[in-house]
């Protein structure tokens, strides 16, 4: 009776194709907004140069670092994480825009699985974050030639760069998922900016990215509880082992960092998938 089930033209959604197309859309949108490209790379570079120049005199290397560590060297992995955080977060703001512009509704009525929507969105954010973080990591050391920063005490060889890239990819994915969980229920980008300044930015500040914060009472406790602390510490261990003294006590070990960052990422992705799969009236806002 019902012949429509065998319609020859009926097509099946494919997971890989969905993720690919959503990722490409993210990239194309990003590169079409030139100011976004300039801002995303320019701002962290300026931060690094200016904060580095301003604060290097007041900086005491933490207990786990070599005694001649410059502030610029200390701040370098922190800025890389800032880039990853900002790009990841800003790329998830597009969820709010997609909802407002109606694109998201079109995706929600298509037969793709909600999981592939999440993974596509996160992959897009991750690729963007990676591109910019790696650009910074490559360009940053060159600043010493312009006398804008001292020569860095650590070396970025090709194998080390690959390890850094791999680590940043995982971290970007986790942070994009965190941004996704925040953006999904919101209906205005203003709301997102508010959350960014009271939650995400402090999270970065208290991750050991900008100051060590050793023996600072409550501050040190918060920093120990902050999952991003382990993200930054892991990056230090991979990126600048020369700058860390033999046992590196006080800086979390690489195994701990990898484990906690992975767990954090898995939790964020799981929450993102859970939120997206809930079918509710709010989908149609």
């Amino acid at each position, binding site marked *: *009776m*019902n*012949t*429509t*089930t065998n*319609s020859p*033209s*009926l*097509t*099946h*959604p*494919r997971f890989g*194709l*969905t993720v*690919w*197309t*959503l990722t*490409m*859309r993210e990239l*194309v*949108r990003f590169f*079409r*907004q030139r100011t976004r490209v300039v801002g995303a790379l320019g701002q962290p570079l300026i931060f690094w140069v200016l904060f580095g120049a301003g604060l290097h005199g007041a900086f005491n290397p933490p207990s786990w670092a070599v005694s001649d560590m410059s502030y610029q060297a200390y701040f370098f992995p922190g800025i890389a994480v800032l880039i990853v955080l900002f790009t990841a977060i800003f790329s998830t703001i597009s969820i709010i825009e997609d909802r407002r*512009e*109606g*694109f998201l*509704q*079109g*995706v*929600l*009525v*298509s*037969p*793709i699985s909600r999981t592939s929507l999440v993974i596509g969105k996160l992959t897009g954010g991750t690729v963007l974050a990676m591109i910019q973080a790696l650009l910074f990591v490559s360009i940053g050391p060159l600043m010493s030639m312009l006398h804008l920063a001292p020569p860095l005490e650590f070396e970025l060889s090709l194998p080390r760069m690959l390890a850094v890239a791999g680590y940043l990819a995982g971290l970007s994915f986790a942070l994009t998922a965190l941004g996704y969980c925040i953006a999904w229920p919101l209906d205005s980008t203003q709301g997102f900016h508010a959350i960014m300044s009271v939650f995400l930015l402090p999270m970065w500040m208290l991750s050991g990215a900008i100051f060590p914060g050793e023996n600072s009472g409550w501050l040190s406790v918060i920093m120990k509880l902050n999952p991003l602390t382990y993200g930054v510490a892991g990056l230090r261990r991979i990126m600048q082992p020369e700058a860390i003294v033999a046992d590196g006590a006080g800086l979390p070990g690489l195994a701990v960092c990898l484990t906690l960052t992975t767990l954090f990422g898995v939790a964020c992705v799981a929450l993102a998938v859970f939120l997206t799969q809930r*079918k*509710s*009236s709010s*989908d*149609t*806002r």
Partner: protein
Amino acid sequence: MPDAATNISGLIHRYGNRVALDNINLSVAAGEIFGLLGPNGGGKTTLFRLLATILPLQQGTVDVLGFDLQSQAHDIRRRIGVTFQSPALDPRLTVRENLKHHGHLYGISGGELRRRIDKLTQEFGLADRLSDRVISLSGGLQRRVEIAKGLLHEPQLLLLDEPSTGLDPGARHDLWHSLYKLREERHVTVLVTTHILEEAERCDRLALLDHGQFVAEGTPDELKSSIGGDCVILRCRNADELAPKLVESLGVTPQKVDETLRLEITDDSQVVKQLLDRFSEEIVSFTWGKPTLEDVFIQRTGHRFWESGEYVERPVKARRH
């Protein structure tokens, strides 16, 4: 083809305490253009969103193309094309990119996708705009891209929410021309919501929705002839005083709507003559005509289609529930 594109029975939907759809029963035949006509807030969009599978079903049973909405939403999604009131195109991408992404979401890729895009854009007169960014297109062209997009995966049922919003009369005419062509050439069933009476006239069949309930259903001609005669509308100095006089002397029962009186008269021009002879003092203006869909709506609901009495058409930007 299934006998019915969709079957709805006992459908109830609430937002908190507010009932948006109150016991809806509806059957749309395969291959027809079916219109849901009603004022904004009448429940059209809620019904539309339920059929588009983005609102959870609360109560009742809904069958779309032979699949149960509650348990087989995935099968439905593969077979329906949806065009929302708010544009669902990415303005920063080109027409081709938008269509390509849409095709990918439905699992169409490569040469097959290119073939479909070329064919559809040819049909919709968009072939020379493929590399233009959507943001640079006029409202009418954007709407055409949306519909082309909705057809890319060759759906059997096309859902359109207020498709004429923001279109000028020319573009609206083109839109309906493409809908008729779709019905003829692809036997696509079209379900369209509208608050524009003139647009509702173009549907094969219609349901009038008010306060979450169907107040009438049928072809536009059936609905209009259900009035059983002509309609006379009187604007008068005092409607409350005049109404009982008309009942007494002419034996007609007027319906009071705002400050006007409405009469349905059979082809008896005597009534009109007497009306003018005897009550010309009390009548400010007089309209006599064939019934319109608005007359049907007023007759069934006792209130105007436009509660405020004004016919204001503008693109609806705010998101409604």
